[in-house]
């Protein structure tokens, strides 16, 4: 059977403002990502010049014609109504957190709980950028915080400017999808 391109197969990149969603999509998208960015008026919250207000969009065009759409959710919580819309039917969510932010842990809890609540069976992979502690202990704390909420999700140190780091997150998402698939689907591979 051939996968056709009229299906919406999508992966969502979520997380607070400045966590690197646009950068991550740019790292792997086959086409230059389309961003609906405007001047950032929340400079107190995140010091970057522009931010995404609706969504980022990129895509992977597979050899058989299948398009995998890559969506970046707007980071600001006042656009949270978009999260549910974008995540509906998605193959999985990659949550990006800025580890250098003083709100990193609370951001992680808020976003992980929100996306887990929207769809508990949807694979969730968490990437933490700019971690302040090089020995991994910061992320151990984050992983424990996620696990204590009954969410089994990988939490990795990443630098989304590096394509291989974004690919690590994608590969993990694919492996989780594979593991969740019925046995018959495994055999097909």
């Amino acid at each position, binding site marked *: 059977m051939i996968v056709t391109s009229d299906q919406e197969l999508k992966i969502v990149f979520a997380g607070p403002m400045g966590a690197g969603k646009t950068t991550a999509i740019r790292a792997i998208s086959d086409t230059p990502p389309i961003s609906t960015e405007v001047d950032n008026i929340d400079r107190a919250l995140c010091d970057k010049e522009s931010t995404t207000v609706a969504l980022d969009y990129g895509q992977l065009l597979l*050899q058989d014609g299948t398009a995998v759409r890559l969506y970046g959710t707007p980071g600001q919580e006042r656009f949270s109504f978009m999260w549910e819309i974008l995540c509906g039917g998605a193959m999985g969510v990659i949550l990006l957190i800025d580890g250098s932010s003083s709100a990193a842990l609370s951001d992680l809890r808020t976003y992980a709980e929100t996306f887990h609540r929207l769809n508990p069976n949807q694979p969730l992979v968490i990437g933490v950028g700019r971690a302040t502690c090089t020995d991994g202990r910061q992320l151990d704390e984050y992983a424990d915080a996620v696990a204590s909420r009954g969410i089994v999700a990988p939490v990795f140190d990443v630098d989304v400017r590096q394509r291989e780091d974004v690919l690590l997150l994608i590969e993990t998402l694919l492996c989780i999808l594979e593991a969740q698939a019925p046995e018959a*689907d495994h055999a097909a591979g």
Partner: protein
Amino acid sequence: MVARRIALVKPASVVEEKITHALQLFDSILWAFQGTTRVTWTLVAPEAAEVIVVHEGDPDQRIPAWRAGGKLIIEISTRDSSTSALVYPFKASQALALLERLGTQLNLRGAPQEADRSPEASVPRRSHEPWSFVETLRTIAEVQNSEAWLVARDDRIPCLWLRADGAVYAAEQATIHAIRRGTLNLASLTLQKGSLPEGGPSPRAGVELSWFAGYYASAGLAPWLKPTVRYRMQRWPNFGLIRPLPSHIRVAAALTSAPGRAHEIAARASVSTEEATRTLNALAVANVLVASGDEVLPTKIAGAPAAAPRGGLAVFLSNVRRHLGLGV
């Protein structure tokens, strides 16, 4: 530095696997803490030893004779015991406290022996037990001493520096590659107290070292894992720091969907049983593996299903991997 001689005596017929593990753990602790304690313990034959470590139930007829001859006999038990000095699994701190007491006791008996300062004596014995290095990592992770550093030598040449809590290590790029490829026999390294050289290699996360040490230690299941038990992950290891092989991610993902034994996980992750076993070992060293039933599983609530590729998930995932150049 005071030198003392110690012997570990394994029972002639081992009826319980735990006995071997208990003696291995004690051996690893001796090895890991060489140079960090007031007494230097050297492993020798029982006849030459001042202290002999035996299993509680060992019927060896030589034990009463050794005791009568003035040797200190330490009994390790593998089940609850009020009479044994150590009950397996014991903590490194318990073993070290016991060794400290024995050292004091021997000092009170007579003049301590000065440590041999010849170059040969400064090089500790090599341990070729496949799990000895991993056991050391597990032990120091438990002791949590972030003040000290240990230096690992290969043929007397320093090749790896390890902070004494195991959280950080440092090595030259070639050594790191060898660790990641499994071509450096970590179990053959000698480990002593030392310090990280100024301007030396940059520190890296210790979880990378312990992951690959656990993965390459043996094709068989780690001594502290049981082949009959189903395991699952309580959380994912930090693969961002470990940079695992693609097969490691598949095994880890397979463990999040359901608990399993090595062969079951292998089938689920489409990898060989050896690959699944080695990854289980690495997950255990990373301290993220639990026996099934030991923890509360996350609640599963039905949600909106994701769009399914019509050609089948396996074909789709294979296409995505090929497109992104991801290893399978």
